[in-house]
């Protein structure tokens, strides 16, 4: 199948504004969008900039906006974007993060927010024998959130971030849930200030865009609401 790739380009050394450039690519409909991008890069235009690594949806490098939706180029097949010869696929960088070059965005803010929620197990109790005990049921409570590959698709999909760039964002909150819901963790008090903040969990308005965008099927909106309830409960307990 012959498709047109309409790709947003931006080179800070020569461009003042982003622009679109089109490439014609002959590609198997079953191929990944990443395969099409690689064809451009390796045989047409070596200057095209994008991140990539695992090429099967587990490393989180190639998140971008694909026909207006956020997702991974390696987990999106050409046939799901184009139906026939001459169809155009539009590719843009993720939103709400500064574009460094073409499809490459500066993820510093995304990772700064991730670090704010202290994304590590907090528990200073000595372990008596080998492993801590946890039932499979307890583990499954937060199972989906451990899928997160920090690709920032949810971040770009979130309408709230469009209005308030200080918002903590879906990934950081779902990763806070990953630890708060872990029976081995004792870090609620340490994470509370970042979460129970006007720019913490509260700006979320349940648009569900993050959940729909997540390439790892995490129920992000649900997890955000669960964190909200945990914070409410803690406030109630404090006021009693």
């Amino acid at each position, binding site marked *: 199948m012959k498709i047109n790739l309409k790709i947003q380009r931006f080179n800070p*050394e020569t461009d003042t504004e982003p622009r679109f450039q089109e490439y014609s690519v002959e590609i198997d409909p079953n191929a990944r969008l990443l395969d099409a991008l690689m064809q451009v890069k*390796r045989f047409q235009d070596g200057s095209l900039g994008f991140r990539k*690594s695992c090429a099967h949806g587990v490393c989180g490098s190639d998140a971008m906006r694909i026909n207006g939706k956020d997702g991974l180029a390696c987990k999106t097949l050409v046939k799901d974007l184009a139906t026939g010869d001459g169809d155009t696929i539009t590719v843009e960088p993720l939103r709400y993060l500064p574009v460094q070059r073409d499809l490459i965005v500066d993820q510093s803010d995304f990772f700064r927010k991730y670090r704010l929620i202290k*994304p590590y197990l907090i528990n200073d109790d000595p372990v008596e024998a*080998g*492993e801590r005990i946890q039932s*499979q049921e307890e*583990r499954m409570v937060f199972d989906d959130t451990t899928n997160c590959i920090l690709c920032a698709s949810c971040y770009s999909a979130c309408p709230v971030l469009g209005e308030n760039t200080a918002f903590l964002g879906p990934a950081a909150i779902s990763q806070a849930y990953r630890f708060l819901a872990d029976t081995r963790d004792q870090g609620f008090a340490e994470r509370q200030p970042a979460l129970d903040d006007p720019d913490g969990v509260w700006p979320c308005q349940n648009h569900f865009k993050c959940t729909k965008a997540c390439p790892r099927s995490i129920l992000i909106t649900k997890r955000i609401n669960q964190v909200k309830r945990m914070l409410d409960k803690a406030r109630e307990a404090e006021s009693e």
Partner: protein
Amino acid sequence: MIHQFDTVIVGSGGSGLYAALEASQRSRTAVVSKLYPIRSHTGAAQGGISAALGNTEEDKPEWHAFDTVKGGDYLVDQGAANILAEEAVQAVYDLENRGLPFNRTPEGRIDQRRFGGHTRNFGEAPVRRACYAADRTGHMILQTLYQQCIKNDVAFFDEFQVVDLAMNGDSCQGVVAVELATGEVHIFAAKAVLFATGGFGRMFKVTSNAYANTGDGPAVCARRGIPLEDMEFFQFHPTGIMGLGILITEAVRGEGGILRNRDGERFMERYSPTLLDLAPRDIVARSMLTEVRAGKGIRGDRKIDDYLHLDATHLGKEVLLAKLPDITSFCNTYLGIDPAETPIPVLPTAHYAMGGIPTDVYGRVVRDGQDTVVPGLYAAGECACVSVHGANRLGTNSLLDLVVFGRRAGQHIGDYVKQADAPQLSEAAADPAREWMARLTEGTSEHHGGHISDEMQTVMMEKVGIYRNAADMQTAVDAMQQLRERYRAVRIQDTGKQFNTDLLELIELGNLLDLSLITAASAANRTESRGAHSREDFPERDDDQWLKHTLAYLEGDTVRIDYKPVDTSIWEPKPRTY
């Protein structure tokens, strides 16, 4: 720009992060990585990490060590295998204590499952030794270690591509790297450098490896006169998704999945009567290719891309969902099938380098057959060769290797840097790297790297693949020499400084070409069959001649071969049957 650290760790996968956790507690440590840390390929490991915890049935580290030695066709250094198996138990507990969400037994302990070549009582029957977190064990290890690095405030230099070592005579004084965001060359002066750059499966056409797996550490070492060990041993994982090479974990077979040919026959019964589908990977991959060549592939046309079926339909949706959710999703995304209902079309995929930078059990790089240490230089993980995998690695032992030897290297570095002098480097340390990059950027060329890369991968896949012979391997050696010549004429198209990924990819291609040549030359030299190195013209293992490690030195356009003895101090080599 010149940075001064005690310790510089190159690479941020499992072994790099574990070493960083250890080294950063006792020395000024920087992690320099071309990827964001959580993008590393450790995160793609699926099935598990082995340790003789004995949580679900009796198990012993001694059995684990023996399986590792036998699985590696006796080319494993046995003392190192013992360390691997013994330290595995505490390593897994440490990961759990640091938050890794393992699957659990009904008693709430770490659950364990079967994996290829792991047996009870020296080969009697499969044993449950692989600790796992669904089928994303590597992802969870990478996440847990990264989380701990955040907790411990480890310093990261993200998206810096290392292009050279700074050496003073025989000792290492630091590394030279390009900052991707700016194109600037940085010199990291350090008392100790650890390479943890991962594998180089991208030299093959069909691979489970990431684009980033281009062997940057080994290639830099090779160009600096350090030999590479046992490069002829490259593992083809039996079950890659046909055509794409995406890994389908061995845990599918560990949970009861079965390989079938076009007649629906469980053909592994004929090749490995005891372990069946859970025989070591080299044996299963060869068996599959033999079936295809006999016209027993699913299409039956005997062509190289004919395939077989991995049947998981009898496992049930629940088991797949709880224990193998990611591969279920891969099958759905890339093949449009549900493995609970349809067998998965599979073919072996280039997966893991048993060989690499030679080290001792403390991660110290050695430069010859007498184990002479290169002061200040360390390596761990897939880029290194301890050797705990010998001629064929067992499934789950790679994640274990990262954790055990990443930690050991980090600890040794912590001691070493205390007594080592801080090197003084000037900008001149980066001159060779600057010259190389200037050559890649000046002028224009008609060649594009993409075609050279394609040819390299095709030749390596066809001539230095699962079955090998003298003529094919010589063809590959010649082809790599020609491709390296053509590579010298290639120029990048991107003239920018910031995020010049064109330059990055040409550097990576240069690394892969060097490693492909070394691999092909090492393979052509070894006139026996052992583990993953399987020769049609020399089908038998030959312990009299070849019970020794290869050391390959890159010298200009040729490869010089030397050898290193194998530690067989515990178990006498025996015929390898399963």
